[in-house]
C-alpha cells in the first residue's frame, strides 16, 4: 500500500525502497553512538595511557614505553593475577553447581509455579550490591549472626574466623552472581523436551547416565554462558575482596583500584585494566563461538 501511495502524496520525492539493512543501521545508531562515546573512546584512552611513563609526582610523562606491560609478569603482580583467577575460578565452579541444581529444580517444578520461583531466585539481585555484601559481614563477623547461632546451639569454644578469609570472598562472589547462573541454565533446561530423558531411560540408561549423556550435553551452552559471566565479573570485582577479604586478598580489581586512586600510577593501572579486558574479551569470544556453532548446526538442518 505504502509503496503505491507514497509517490502520489509526495510527488517531489522519488520513490525509494529502504533496504532492511539501512533501516536496522538507523535504529541501532543511538545505541552505537552511546557505546562509542562512553565505552570505545574511554577504553581507547585507557589503552593509550598504558604505553606512557609514570611522572615523578604521579602525573603522566608522554613518552612511549612497554614497561607497564612488562611489569605485569613480575612475580608479585603475576601472583595477584593467579590468586584472582583461582578465587574467580572457585566462585564460578561453586556458582555453576548450585545454580544448575537450582535451575534444574525450577524447570522440574509445575509449569505454573516456575515464574514465581524464578522471581524469588532473582529477588536478592534487586537490592544494592553494597548492602548485600555488608549483610555478609553481619553474618560472618566474629560475633556475628552465625557465631551467635552456634552459641545458642551450645557452642562454647572460640568464635570461628570466617570474615576476612578467601572463603568469605568466594561466598560473597557466589552469592552475588548466582542469579545469572540460574537464569542462564534455566533457559535450556526449560526448553528441553522431557521425552528425550524418557527415550534415554527407555533405551536402557539409568537416571544418572541419562543426565550425563543427554541432559547435561544439551544444556552446556547455558552453563558456559553463566560460567563466563561469573568468572568475568568475579576476576574484575574489587568491592567484595575489599569488604569481605579485609584487604588481605589482593585481586586484580583491587590492584587497579589502588594504582588509580592510591599509588597514582595511572599508566600501570591502565596496563592491568587492558590485560583484564583482553582476558574477558577472549572468554566472551570463545563462548560466543561455541554458542554460534550450536546455532549453526541447527540452521544447516533447516535447509536439509
Amino acid at each position: 500500500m505504502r509503496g503505491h501511495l507514497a509517490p502520489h502524496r509526495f510527488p517531489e520525492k522519488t520513490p525509494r525502497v529502504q533496504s532492511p539493512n539501512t533501516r536496522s543501521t538507523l535504529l541501532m545508531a543511538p545505541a552505537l553512538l552511546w557505546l562509542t562515546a562512553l565505552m570505545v573512546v574511554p577504553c581507547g584512552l585507557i589503552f593509550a595511557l598504558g604505553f606512557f611513563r609514570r611522572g615523578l609526582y604521579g602525573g603522566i610523562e608522554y613518552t612511549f614505553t612497554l614497561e607497564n606491560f612488562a611489569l605485569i609478569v613480575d612475580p608479585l603482580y603475576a601472583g595477584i593475577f593467579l590468586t584472582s583467577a583461582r578465587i574467580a575460578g572457585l566462585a564460578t565452579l561453586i556458582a555453576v553447581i548450585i545454580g544448575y541444581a537450582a535451575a534444574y529444580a525450577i524447570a522440574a517444578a509445575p509449569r505454573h509455579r516456575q515464574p514465581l520461583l524464578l522471581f524469588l531466585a532473582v529477588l536478592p539481585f534487586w537490592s544494592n550490591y553494597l548492602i548485600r555484601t555488608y549483610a555478609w559481614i553481619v553474618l560472618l563477623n566474629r560475633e556475628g549472626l552465625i557465631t551467635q547461632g552456634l552459641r545458642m546451639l551450645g557452642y562454647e569454644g572460640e568464635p570461628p574466623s570466617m570474615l576476612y578469609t578467601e572463603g568469605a570472598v568466594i561466598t560473597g562472589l557466589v552469592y552475588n552472581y548466582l542469579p545469572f547462573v540460574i537464569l542462564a541454565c534455566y533457559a535450556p533446561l526449560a526448553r528441553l523436551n522431557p521425552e528425550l530423558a524418557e527415550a534415554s531411560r527407555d533405551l536402557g540408561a539409568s537416571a544418572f547416565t541419562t543426565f550425563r549423556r543427554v541432559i547435561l550435553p544439551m544444556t552446556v551452552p547455558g552453563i558456559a554462558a553463566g560460567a563466563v559471566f561469573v568468572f568475568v565479573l568475579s576476576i574484575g570485582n574489587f568491592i567484595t575482596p575489599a569488604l569481605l577479604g579485609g584487604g588481605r586478598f589482593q585481586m586484580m580489581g583491587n590492584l587497579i583500584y589502588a594504582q588509580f586512586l592510591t599509588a597514582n600510577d595511572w599508566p600501570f593501572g591502565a596496563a592491568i585494566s587492558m590485560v583484564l579486558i583482553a582476558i574477558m574479551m577472549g572468554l566472551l569470544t570463545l563462548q560466543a563461538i561455541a554458542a554460534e556453532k550450536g546455532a549453526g548446526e541447527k540452521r544447516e538442518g533447516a535447509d536439509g
Partner: protein
Amino acid sequence: MTALLSIDGVSKRFGAVTAVDGLSLDIMENEFFALLGASGSGKTTLLRMLAGFETPDAGAIHLDGADISRVPPNRRPVNLMFQSYALFPHMTVEGNIAYGLEMERLPRSEIASRVAEIMETTELAPMAKRKPDQLSGGQRQRVALARALVKRPRLLLLDEPLGALDKKLRAAMQLELKRLQHDVGITFIVVTHDQEEALVMADRVAILKDGRLLQCGTPHEVYEHPANRFAADFIGVMNFIEEGGRTLAVRPERLHLFPDRADRTVEGRVTARAYHGLDLQLHVATPLSPKPLLVRLTANAADRRPVSEGDTVTLGWNDADTRQFND
C-alpha cells in the same frame, strides 16, 4: 498358545480422572496390534504403562509370564517409539541408534555391526553421520524406528508412529511398517487415533473409549461386526436408521441406488453430492433418520445412472448388511 503380553484388569487414575479403567487384553507373540481410540480414550496412558513410565493403580501386566508392572523402563525388554521421535539432537544418526546398545554394554564390534545392519534395513546408511535436524520427517521417523528395533525388544510400542508424516508418505509407510514387522519378527503395538491406519496395518485392533475396551478383533470383524453403536460409528462411516423403535446400522457402500432387488427400500432427496474421484458420495434426506443418509457409489455405478442435487432417488439395502444395536 499363551499370550506374550497379558494386561489383566489394569487401572490408572490421575487425580479425579480415570484414564484406564479395569482393562484386560492378551497380545500374542509376533502380532501387529493396534490400540485405537480418540484422544482421552486412555490409549497413550496404557502405552506408557507398558513402557514403564506409569505404574498401574490396580491390575497387573505380564510379559512372558513375568509381572513387569513395577519394573522401571530401563529394565524392560520393551521399547517405545515416541510420537515426537525424541531423537537426541546432539548425537548423529549412528550415535542415536548405538545409544541403546551401549547401555547394554555390548562389545564395540557387536554394536557396530548391529547398527550397520539396522541402518541398511531402514535405508539410513548414507545419513549415518548426520544430526537429526539435518533429516527430513520421514528419515527422522526411520531413525526412531531403527533406534528401538536395534535393541531387539520382545515388544515394540509405537505411539502414533505415522502422525507427523504427510498423507502420501503415511500410506506408503503403513505397508512398510507391516513388512518390517514381518521381517524382524517382533511384536508391535501401535497406538493410533486413525481408524484407517489401524485397519490397514494391524492383525488385531482394540477400540478404547473412556479407558475401557469396547471391542477387540481383526480389522474385518470390527468393521463388519461392530460390537456396539460407538464402535460402529468410530470405525469407518456408518448410517443409523430408526425403524420401528430399533436402530439399524448400515455402511454407505451397502446402500444401493435404484436397486433391482432389495429387502428394504426408501425414497429420498439428494441434498449434497461430493465427487472423490474413486467414488461419488451422496447425502440423501429420508424420513428414516434426522441426518441425511450417506451413500457411496463406485465410479462405475455413478456413471450408469447420473444424479444431481435435488433429484428424488430410491435407496435399497439387504437385511444381511445391517446391524442392530439395543443401546
